[in-house]
């Protein structure tokens, strides 16, 4: 695998299918960046949504749910 294909494999945590791994570097980097961006955006959005969601809960319930969210 090329270096760019290995970067995609690391981002995917799996070896990409052969025709994907054989793409030009530019396209492999595009896929890797798109997935990494999407993961980062998802983490941000999830944190924001959880904070906002807690705001809808009555105080007593909020404490219980916050505890559950902490695991």
């Amino acid at each position: 695998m090329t270096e760019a294909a290995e970067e995609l494999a690391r981002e995917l945590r799996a070896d990409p299918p052969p025709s994907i791994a054989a793409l030009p570097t530019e396209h492999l980097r595009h896929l890797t960046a798109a997935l990494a961006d999407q993961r980062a955006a998802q983490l941000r959005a999830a944190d924001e949504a959880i904070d906002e969601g807690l705001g809808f809960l009555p105080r007593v319930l909020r404490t219980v749910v916050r505890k559950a969210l902490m695991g």
Partner: protein
Amino acid sequence: MSERLDARAEVLKLARLLELKPDELSYLSGLPSAEVRDLRDQATDRLFTSAPGLARAAAAARLIPSGLVATIAQRAFGPMLCARAAGGADTAKAIDVARRLPADFLADVAIHLDPRRTAEIIAAVPEEVVVPVAEELGRRHEHVTMGRFLAFVPDHAVAAAIGALDDETMLRTAFVLEHKDRLDHAIGLLPPERLPGIIDTAARLELWSEALDLLAHVSDERKGPIAEVVAVLEEGVVAGLVAAVSADGLWESLLPVVRLMGEEPRIRIAAMPAFHGTEVLADILHAATAEDADGLWVDLVPLVDALPDEANARVAGLVTTLDPAALAVILREAAAAPHTLETLLRLVARMRPDDREVVVTAIDAAERELGETLLAGLTDPEDVGRLVALVPDDVLTAVRRAAERFDLTAELDAALAAR
């Protein structure tokens, strides 16, 4: 679905997952669709396991009244995060919340859902939720989304969705199904009275390719009722169907339908000029004699038998123009299905003596396995009289040469003596 359309659908699904425009992934459109799908599965797995907070939030929802969860889902999370969190939710809770959410929101969630992770929830969704969501997805032409779900939806929900979708949506959705192996079963859930409307829609909207692609994935048992509907189509509609089949090379989908018709309707449809043109007949023969046309000769024979005399003679003429490899395919298929030998011999008997030379050459070139099977079919005690009577002398001489080559002269003579 054709590989080209399959690949386009896969690029669309991956683009949605990564929140890109499909054009931005145009460099994937020439790749094998199965590999783009594998990449999407890998990216889905990665994304859906990358936000442990979402899974915890989904699990924590059980502590919150369902009405409040529905409010938070819409106002704080939105459909994409809900879809990605859904796999971590308790099934009963998820259903209770879904009942309180509007269909357009659930349709948005469905677009982003990974059915593999939410199979248990999908299987438990009640009809009163399935129907409005299916209607909403149908309104939005979300055929690709609906096509991802079939393998995960129980029969009662499939039947409910079928009732909610119009004929065009059904056709387009079935065409882009991800699990075509489920199609045969799903068509069994289709009320028979829907078939004429679906076929009429295929004709009206020129969706024959979509309709014929479906036929390629269903059993004879399901094709039977479809054949009955096709058999009573008007001449103009049949002409459109035949033109579409010729253009897209889909004879392997249509010929079995013709085979499954009753004799009378088959003769009626075979009498239509759409089947009589030299180009169409040549096209059919080429399809039936392609190296990968496994069994298509058997499907073609009932049509050849039902054709009017002039068109049948045209088929005989066209057989003489086939290259040796194509002719060998017919001989091989006819030998393997002895009930089709009579049709082949009748075609051979119609050929001009000079033209029969290609058949003689093909028999002379036959290898042992083919020669033995062909002789066994020709000398079947029940049919030998009728079949041998059809064989012109020059062809019979070639058969005799083949029998000598394979040390089967005694068997051939015994059969001929018994006729």
